[in-house]
């Protein structure tokens, strides 16, 4: 839940496994933007094209934050090193802060090229067969 009172949904894989202590989370949150808007589509493409590779082994997980079946209100990238966070593709659309967190789990990053969401789950989570 955000300070504003909004309930948002991350990819549940990011918070359901073994947490990585002392990680850095780049939390981008702002006004809701439709997932289908060009800027949010392009941010997902950029994650697949270079953000994952740029973070390399430091990446723990990445997830968008879904408000409902249509809107994205931000994203979180979690890594063991915060030095690359200024390049976060989602920070172009949402104000971002860096926080230290023991909450997030290591999740294998999405392979691409799919940027669409699976049944409304926050990208990149979900799949059709469970």
């Amino acid at each position, binding site marked *: 839940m955000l300070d504003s009172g909004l309930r948002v949904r991350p990819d549940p894989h990011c918070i359901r496994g073994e947490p990585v202590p002392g990680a850095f989370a780049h939390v981008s949150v702002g006004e809701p933007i439709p997932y289908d808007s060009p800027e949010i589509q392009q941010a997902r*493409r950029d994650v*697949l*094209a*270079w953000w*994952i*590779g740029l973070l*390399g*082994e430091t990446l723990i997980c990445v997830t968008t934050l879904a408000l409902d079946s249509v809107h994205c209100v931000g994203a979180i990238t979690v890594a063991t090193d915060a030095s690359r966070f200024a390049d976060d593709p989602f920070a172009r659309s949402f104000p971002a802060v860096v926080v230290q967190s023991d909450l997030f789990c290591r999740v*294998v*990053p999405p*392979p*691409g*090229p*799919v*940027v*669409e969401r*699976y049944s409304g789950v926050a990208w990149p989570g979900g*799949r*059709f*067969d*469970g």
Partner: protein
Amino acid sequence: MSSVATVFTDLELPDHTGRVRTLSELAGGDPLALFFSRGWWCPKEQRFLRGMVALQDEFEVAYSRLVVVSIDTPEVQSAFRAGLGARFTFLSDSGRRYLDELGLRETTDTVHHPYRPAAFTLYPDLRVHRAYNGYWYWGRPTTEEIRQDMRAITSAIRPDWELD
């Protein structure tokens, strides 16, 4: 994989970032187009993969996956992938682990020992829908053939494919 196998080997190889991946994990419940490529230096591979980069704009909205396997190292694949503008996964078999198991050792390049170009369209459980021998460039699937294969697989696995 022999030419008569119906389920593809669940390859386990590092991707272009160095993370070990399995083919079934990469499929992720979606249809998969799998390409074996000689390597970054081959003009035929460069041309063919530029075509796949154009096609990825459809894959990204069609719940389908694209994977390329070559003997390039992850670092080389990562650079090649960036140069192409690809957003799909490359798997590195720089150790030639599956070259002979799959029967895809290139015969005419005795220096690099690369894969013979080949393409497979797979169901999410890695059953083979169709195989293409890409040794001769015209043997490779066209973008339209890949579309038709993805359509056939998708129609078979998505229960809500037909209009009521």
